[in-house]
């Protein structure tokens, strides 16, 4: 049996809203094995993005444990989490979140430069990644000069830069047309083929078909676990 790389134990998350509190995640428990492709779906506001943020070390639960690659992220400090986000997780945001002052190539290179990899290796890897996402000709453009689909592909290339074990994508096709959506689906397929652990929040039927397992979030609770 494959090793468990992600383990959520009684995860709860509440946000203060004025005088009251809103419960976004309620008692979430699951395990994800290495190389598994998991799709999380649910209605808007169900807590999909919050759950991905907690797995990705961007947010912390109000209670519970989130163990990723053997580390309980809920007890780690910000410096540890920064290194974790840079080296161990690739995150594709719904809104792409590219650095607007860096070119496409610079955005993709950023995580590698930050971890101090040799320049020759970075140049080679950037070229490979841009070729993979089909944006070699856009290397020296700024994100503002790209279409939404192109920006999403750059975000994928950036997420893959440090060859992380865990790959997270938040509604990667949510803002895209069918053609661009298909390209993204192909990339996810490629990651699956490479044996990466992939967790995607999505409403896209194509992506869900790719998944080994789906998790349904309803009103902050895990409604079903399709084993």
């Amino acid at each position, binding site marked *: 049996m494959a090793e468990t790389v992600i383990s959520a134990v009684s995860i709860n998350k509440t946000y203060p809203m004025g005088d009251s509190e809103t419960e976004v995640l309620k008692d979430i428990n699951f395990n994800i094995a290495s190389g598994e492709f998991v799709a999380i779906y649910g209605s808007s506001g169900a807590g999909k993005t919050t759950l991905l943020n907690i797995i990705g070390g961007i947010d912390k639960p109000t209670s519970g444990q989130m163990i990723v690659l053997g580390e309980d992220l809920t007890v780690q400090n910000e410096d540890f989490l920064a290194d974790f986000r840079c080296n161990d997780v690739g995150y594709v945001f719904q809104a792409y979140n590219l650095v607007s002052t860096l070119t496409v190539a610079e955005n993709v290179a950023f995580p590698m430069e*930050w971890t*101090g990899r040799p320049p020759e290796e970075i140049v080679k890897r950037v070229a490979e990644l841009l070729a993979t996402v089909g944006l070699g000709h856009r290397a020296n*453009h700024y994100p503002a000069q790209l279409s939404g689909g192109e920006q999403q592909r750059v975000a994928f290339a950036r997420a893959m830069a440090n060859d992380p074990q865990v790959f997270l994508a938040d509604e990667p096709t949510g803002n895209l047309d069918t053609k661009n959506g298909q390209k993204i689906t192909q990339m996810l397929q490629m990651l699956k083929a490479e044996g990466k652990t992939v967790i995607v929040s999505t409403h896209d039927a194509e992506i869900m078909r790719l998944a080994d397992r789906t998790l349904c979030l309803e009103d902050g609770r895990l409604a079903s676990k399709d084993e």
Partner: protein
Amino acid sequence: MSSVRFPIKDLARRRLQTSLTITTLTLSVASTLFLLLFSWQVGVGISSTSETLTAGLSAIFAQFVLFIGVLIFVVGAILTSFIVFLMMKQRTRDFGLIKAAGCPNGRVFGYFLAELLIVTVVGCVLGVVFGFTADSVATRVLGVQAIQNPPNLLFASIVFAVFFILAVTFGVKPMLDAARASPLKLLSPVQYFGLGKGGKFKPLSRTGITLQVASRSLFRRVSASVRIILLLSIVFLLLTVSVAGSIIANDTTTIWVENAVGQNVILIAHQDMVTQYKLLMSQAFTQDLAGYFNYTDERLAVPDAILENLNGLHGVSGVDARLVLMEPVREMSGYYIDPDTQSTYSVGDNRNGTSLVVGVNPEKILTSPHTKGQFLNSSDAQMAVIGDTLAQAMYSTDLRAKPPIRLADPLLQKIIVQGKIFDITGVCIDPTNSGNVTYVPLKELQSVTGISTVNVVLVRLDASVDRVATLAQLKTIVQDINPEFSVFELDEVLQENVAFLGSLWSEIMLLPLFTLGSAALCLVGYMMLSVDEQRHEFGVLRAIGTKPNTAVAVAAVQSSLVLLSSLAVGLSFGIITTLLILVPHPIVTVLTVIKISTWLFAALAIMFLLSLIPAVRIAKTSILRVMA
């Protein structure tokens, strides 16, 4: 939606940006009004002492206060226009959005104009209130030379009117541009970010990336960056003029006073004359000069025996015997021949006055006041050197006189003392009798007055001898010859003069302190707006693996670039202005340079550290809140 409700709702919705803009605008108006009121108070305070301060020194102080006041106003005006420009520039995209939604151009313009007017009026009114409050508190707490006056409503009205007009003018400019542009152009991210194609990719280190992100972000907002650099350059010009200028002027005037009073100089005279001479030398900071003093009283004449003993005494390196009198003096007009037209013009008039007349032996004089022209150099010549205050009172142009005196120059004129005409060869800055003094050769003065004695003797002690022992010996000799005569160290009066000058300059030095404070606050305001604009970018950087302090590092690079560019411009122009315009014949020592460098470095460090506050706050905020 009504044209009033929308702007108010919109401002309330953008609470952070609105409060930042109003705060910065308030600070700008308040600090300008406060500094103008305060410098005016200090200026009035100092000018009230100028009846006793010498004219030359008063002129330097007055120039400084005026120049600093003008600069403060310019800084405030640029800052105000900058803040409003920045605020409205940030709304260009919103302008496009509302236009794209179908709102007529005129109405969108009206909405934003209403927002601009609301923010400007609130900022200016609050600024005036806080400016008055700060001035009132500062003058009370600091207890400066300032004269307590009722609130200067004229200043307040001028500041309010000028700043309001500037704010509206500069705020309307980006809106007019937006009104002319198509919604498509306004909404285009390329238009918004203003980026061209980047250069060839080259991998960088962590430091390299930090520098790259910081500098590109700075250059992307090029118009805002240029404006803040321009603003801070003027702030540094102001700081340099007030700090470097004050220090150089303080050192220069101190040395002038030291040279005029003399260092390590001992006064020997009748005890009444000692008291009077001390008062004459302390006129700048005391008003206690007795109404009448008989300088020709025979009791005051220094006995020959004292002079004979002093000349051969071990440890005495110089003896300067003087005859000091208070005499009526008269201006004598001169003439000037224009070299081009060969026309002759009358210079000055024939005004009367009273001056302290000091007869000195030019070969033996122990003091060397700073002199424009030439000091006395011969015992026999009928030459005179007059003090700056006398020159101001009797040898200046006077258009109110009948007939008006349009041309006056003491160096082209003469002075009449006791009916004898002396050529004026120089005008000196001398605290003796607050500059109302005339130096003539001792022989000439004795000749015209018929007084063959002297009433004051100045003695310089050799620096290598035992000062205490020599002084004791001097006292014994003097007391043995005439017990009514005494020995007094003029260094005491010199120190009082220097301390008084120092106190005046230290008041002026309060202005750069406050200017620094307000400039630092404004820089923090700019950095708050700047960091707020990059807020999302900082969130993204953290989300992909940089540490929280990266935001601080980026802000530090941006702040350094802005501050160092501004410092280079401001410092250069400040030094040039000080040395060429404000302080004639500056005396700059190594100590002066060290003092100025310490001040400016401290100012730079304080401003730099304060400018990082907004980024530090971002670094302490969670990623999701930063990106929200």
